[in-house]
């Protein structure tokens, strides 16, 4: 399976672990990512809030480059690992299709560089979507050699990848579960993490740290309440905020959280038996080693759903149970 690949700025620096692990697991799972040559920043969340036309021109250039690169018939699928990049690329593609005026303006700008983009030329996909729906959980499960038994994982999606739902998202926009199922497939114990789609604060850490720390603290507290060994995410921003600001949260709130924040691609790599150093482990602020040492070789005994008492009323049957 071939894909265009738009890494985005984060994956070159702070989220290099995400990039390294994604590339490391691609081969064993039969994925080929061809990086878009000469790509530029997607504008993140800031540019789009200031001036739409240059913001979309900035994103449009990446789409045009990807389309050009794919025009040799390879694949019109463009993979984006970062949630913000993914949303910006997808939005630009959608809005250029919805509004011919916007498309004309953007294309006038792109023409200066000899480029052109028509909505729909490229299908923008998030990395998680590709792993879950193209590779498939069964195929991943088959390749698992070192299951993540005994590791309690809180899957954290952040607010961008499945929203807005109106743009045709690959998972439920309010309560996504695709990464939950993937972590189960890897053998991990998955926490039903209530705040899985809540905001990490984004760039609020730079503007109003108090607000950001409150949002980060909520997530850490909830994961700790659920006794998660690690929070697994799919977004460089979420990873950075929860990882790098965990100390600040502890200082401000007098807490003692020590939860490693990892990428789902790193977890896939571990389960496939790849070496941690090839998966970017060691670059996180909160050391993942103690958590990873919990992974056991034995299949944990299945927690039987026992009726606590004669009086207890049955729980609703969920589709995956029946």
């Amino acid at each position: 399976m071939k894909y265009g690949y738009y890494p985005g700025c984060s994956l070159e620096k702070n989220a290099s672990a995400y990039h390294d692990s994604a590339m490391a697991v691609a081969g064993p799972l039969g994925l080929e990512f061809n990086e878009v040559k000469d790509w530029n920043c997607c504008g993140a969340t800031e540019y789009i809030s200031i001036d739409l036309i240059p913001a979309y021109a900035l994103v449009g250039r990446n789409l045009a480059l990807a389309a050009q690169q794919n025009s040799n018939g390879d694949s019109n699928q463009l993979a984006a690992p970062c949630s913000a990049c993914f949303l910006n690329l997808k939005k630009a593609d959608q809005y250029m299709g919805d509004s011919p005026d916007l498309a004309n303006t953007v294309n006038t700008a792109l023409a200066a560089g000899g480029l052109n983009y028509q909505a729909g030329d490229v299908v923008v996909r998030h990395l998680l979507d590709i792993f879950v729906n193209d590779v498939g959980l069964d195929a991943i499960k088959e390749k698992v050699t070192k299951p993540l038994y005994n590791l309690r994982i809180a899957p954290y999606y952040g607010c961008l990848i499945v929203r807005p739902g109106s743009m045709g998202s690959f998972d439920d926009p309010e309560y996504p579960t695709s990464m939950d199922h993937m972590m189960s497939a890897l053998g991990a114990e998955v926490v039903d993490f209530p705040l899985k789609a809540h905001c990490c604060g984004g760039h609020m850490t730079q503007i109003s740290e108090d607000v950001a720390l409150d949002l980060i603290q909520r997530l850490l507290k909830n994961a700790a309440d659920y006794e998660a060994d690690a929070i697994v995410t799919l977004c460089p921003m979420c990873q950075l905020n929860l990882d790098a600001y965990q100390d600040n949260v502890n200082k401000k709130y007098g807490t003692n959280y020590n939860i490693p924040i990892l990428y789902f691609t790193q977890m896939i790599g571990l389960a496939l038996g790849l070496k941690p150093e090839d998966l970017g482990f060691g670059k996180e602020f909160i050391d993942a080693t103690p958590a990873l040492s919990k992974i056991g070789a034995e299949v944990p005994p299945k927690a039987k759903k026992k009726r606590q008492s004669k009086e207890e009323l049955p729980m609703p049957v969920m589709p995956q149970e029946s």
Partner: protein
Amino acid sequence: MTDEKIGVYICHCGTNISDTVDVENVATWAGEDLEEKGVVVSRDYKFMCSSLGQELIEADIKEQGLTRVVVAACSPHLHEATFRTACDRAGLNPYLCEMVSVREQVSWVHTDKEIATAKSKALILGGVERVALHEPLEPLKVPINPTTMIVGAGISGIQSALEIADSGFPVVLVERDSSIGGHMAQFDKTFPTLDCSACILTPKMVQAGNHPNITLLSWSEVERVDGYVGNFTVTIRKKARYVNEDVCTGCGICIEKCPAKVIDTEFEAGLGYRKAIYRNFPQAVPKYPVIDVDNCIYFQREKCKACQIFCPTQPNSIEFDQEDEVIQVEVGNIVLATGFDLFDARRIPQYGYGRLANVFTSLEFERMCNASGPTTGKVFMRDGVTTPKSVGILHCVGSRDKHYNNYCSVICCMQSLKFAHVVKERTGAEVYNFYIDMRTAFKDYDEFYQRVLEEGVHFIRGRVAEVTDAARLPGEEGKLIIQAEDTFIGKQRRIPVDMVILSAAIEPRHDSNEVAHQFGISCSTNGFFTEKHPKLDPVATMTEGIYIAGCAQGPKDIPASITQGAAASARVLGKIQAGELALEPVRASVNQDICSGCRICNNQCPFNAILFHEDRMVSEINPALCQGCGTCVAACPSNAISGTQFSNEQLEAQLTGLLALNIDGSSVRVLEPVAAD
């Protein structure tokens, strides 16, 4: 030049038509310019449908010897019958009258008077050309079988059955479940009077079960419907109960002795247990239990037979070798009262149903309140022992939400108020109702709302964002937190509660589309059965002899379901009393000399009216089933099918008339004539 004498009549419809169409001009034009088409009289009149208007036409037929009539007014759906009857009174065959819609198709959809006037002329010319080729027709008469089948024995179906049976006519009442009663049998109290649901329902169930004119087929499903109004042949599958109804006394010992206990996801809405041999509730009608094969130890592992061993009847009532029985019944009319399904609250994961133990659906809560339910009527949390100190009730779960159902489910506001009252009364807990709008229309409903307000229930206007167990603020630990925007104060609120009740939407039955197809009726886009007319005929369907009642037609409460059930019966009784039915003679027929037997038309017919003679390799149309839609006429590649009132010649003549006119000297053209080869 034709020999016909045609009268053209243009209606003002008050000002509905005349505001947009120059009716006087049209009348003058028709009288002068269409003289060579045979028009001998042309008039406009304020209300053509009034007695005076009709008399105008009748007088012209008698005095001027009209042989054809064209009425340009509203849609034929409304007044075709009126004008046809007027012609009939004056001695003209009613099918020699043609209606042209210049209201729905012209004045209501145009604003430019010049264009509207020109379009009216084109439509009238089409009508004049067409009516000249009409032939006098006689209506078809079919006898009506006095037996009625009612599908679905919820409150609406039961009411319908009793009305007809009490009038002395036979009814076949078919119910898919093992007992009649429907959803109402699951409820505890009914709003706004708070009388016990079972107390008012069970007498009707007993009446229906014992009525000499009602044949009750429970645990049965309709498999196939053939025939047409007055003469349906229905194939019904009586599913094996594995209990002999002729000997079983309903003593219930088998149920008591059965060792297989399973969660009852149907009658108890998943909140309680039943045995593998069971009946829904103590007052079930009929009283005979049924074996759930999937959970029966004998059927799964070939041992046990406890029910048979302990059965006290002679001979034994338990028959493990019983098989489904397929029977056929002949009926004249059918009432579909197939009810609703409850919205699956798991589809809104952020409300936590299925994940968070103390989130309940409305139906679960109904069972919990019910004295014969799993908690014998006590309001408990999921552990079955703890009384909640605070309860949140969410309205509009799956209703009025573009992600799920756009419509309002009608009952949820009142149901949620009822729940609020019951919780207050039985637990004294704080109750918070989260609503979008409070909809308490109908008799005594708003008074009930006032009463619940006075009881101290809290009302928060705002759709709930999520129900979570992620505690953040003091006092939230161990609680369910309801996060919602309070739109009255413009603030986000987090309300910690012990228990949440989701007032889930009323949805069409999951198989409503297949059922509609089976009976030859249609479903609206949201899946409820489509009535013939949303205001004027809400119980009939476009298929003659098929009526609908209750929630199958759309969300409604108990009084409305009963009203519609009774109304459907009134319509059926009218048909039965008439003894025979005159059908529109607008029918298609196959010229069997030309038919090539290609069978293309067979699958096109939406009314299953075309049968194929294998021996002679030709198709034939059953005139009693044919509704005159014309699909087969258009589909036939050999031109072997023609329709009375819509033959190729008639339609070509109408098109010729429609396309003959343009507005001279202006750029606006009503219709471009099709270039002839």
